[in-house]
């Protein structure tokens, strides 16, 4: 089963030019608000679209409400992946 890691998140942020923010956030910044790292709600919708495309998992629009920090985003995406794998 696929596990989504912080490395994957950094990779996604860095791979999309429309997501230029701060992909190099360190271990101490996993609980910093994504908004403070340079990612607004539109950026998180863009991220959701990329996850949908690359991982084949549906990401509802309200995912933005849950993905507030890098750690929350990683956990949210992993939950979505688990649900897909369980289905």
């Amino acid at each position, binding site marked *: 089963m696929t596990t989504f890691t912080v490395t994957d998140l950094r990779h996604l942020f860095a791979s999309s*030019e429309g997501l*230029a*923010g701060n992909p190099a956030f360190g271990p101490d910044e996993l609980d910093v608000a994504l908004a403070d790292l*340079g990612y607004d709600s*539109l*950026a998180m*919708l*863009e991220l959701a*679209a990329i996850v949908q*495309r690359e991982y084949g998992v549906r990401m509802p629009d309200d995912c933005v409400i849950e993905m507030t920090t890098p750690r929350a985003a990683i956990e949210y995406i992993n939950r979505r992946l688990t649900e897909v794998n369980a289905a």
Partner: protein
Amino acid sequence: MTTSHAVVTGIGVVAPTGVTTAEHWASVLAGKSGLGRITRFDAGDYPVRVAGQVPGFRATEQVPARLVPQTDRGTHFGLVAAADALIDARVDPQELPEYEMAVVTAASSGGTEFGQHEMERLYTKGPDWVGAYQSIAWFYAATTGQVSIRHGMRGPCGVICTEQAGGLDVLGQSRRLLGSGSRLVLGGGSDASLCPYGLVAQLSNGGLSADPDPARAYLPFDADAAGYVPGEGAAMLVVEDEAAAATRGAPVYGRITGYAAGFDPPPGSPRPPVLARTIRAALAEARLDPGDVDMVFADAAGQPDADRREAEALAEIFTPGGVPVTAPKTLTGRMYAAGAALDVATALLALRAGVIPPTAPVARPASGPALDLVSETRSSDPRTALVLARGHGGFTAALVVTAPRKDTA
């Protein structure tokens, strides 16, 4: 209802004639045209081959990196022109109350090129491939919003969509906002529609020139006039209350002393076009007689009927040949929402320099009322300029700018 003490203290220009105000003004004085064969895409199969394209503009060098892929080319132009205008006016928005600074821009097409790119992804790959930024980048108000966010200008913000007339309408609106709590307004226009989708949309009005020769494609007021050339770019102006500008020691280009807008009757109506009435209203508000006007920046549609109507309105008010008329937009093409704002900028630069800038020479004047078309720079120390603009569908606007009072120059 409106304040008559609005002054312009800053100018920012991105145009086919140059990507700075200084470059643009030098091109105008030299009569150096920015028209050429379309190179931004292969226009070989399109009936329009000539356009006014902005040369040497690199968004990545002038627009914050994060915004470049999130916004359209028209917004890139607007962001650069806005930043330049603020610097020119010696304004640091961070030092002023954020709710007392407003942004009003005109737009005719929205983010056309950005939208085309996203539609290509939609049709070739599917809806999941349409980026989230399409939701804001296409929008007419995108430039206003991005300028407002970038500079923290959170006063009344808006967008006006009256095609070519929009470049004047935003300045009328800017002046109005000065009377209701805004101390400084960025007003102007930006448009960039030289992509296949954008060009096809422009073709629908039937007014574009099909002549493939850049020197012959746009000949307003000439017997060979056969349409206009499309242009792209942005012009932004900092508008302030005269007393407030004087208090902070700001340089003043000139005063906005009169503005009026009208709307043409529908085709076939027995009522006359509104241009003459709109000019009279603008002059009346400026408390000027026609004889006080030193130069007219014409709308110069380049279409025989529209040119004749403009010449008739000018003859009615100023007598035939009774006022110097110029159309520097012959060097840029018609820049849609940005065009008239650029004309106002050029008029203010001309007032400062004490010259009437030239228009492309007319070889064979069209029939109709005589015009005193300025074909070479005239050093006649103009003090007052009338700028005219007509937008597709009947939008009409006139704006009067006068040289600053001697003690504030």
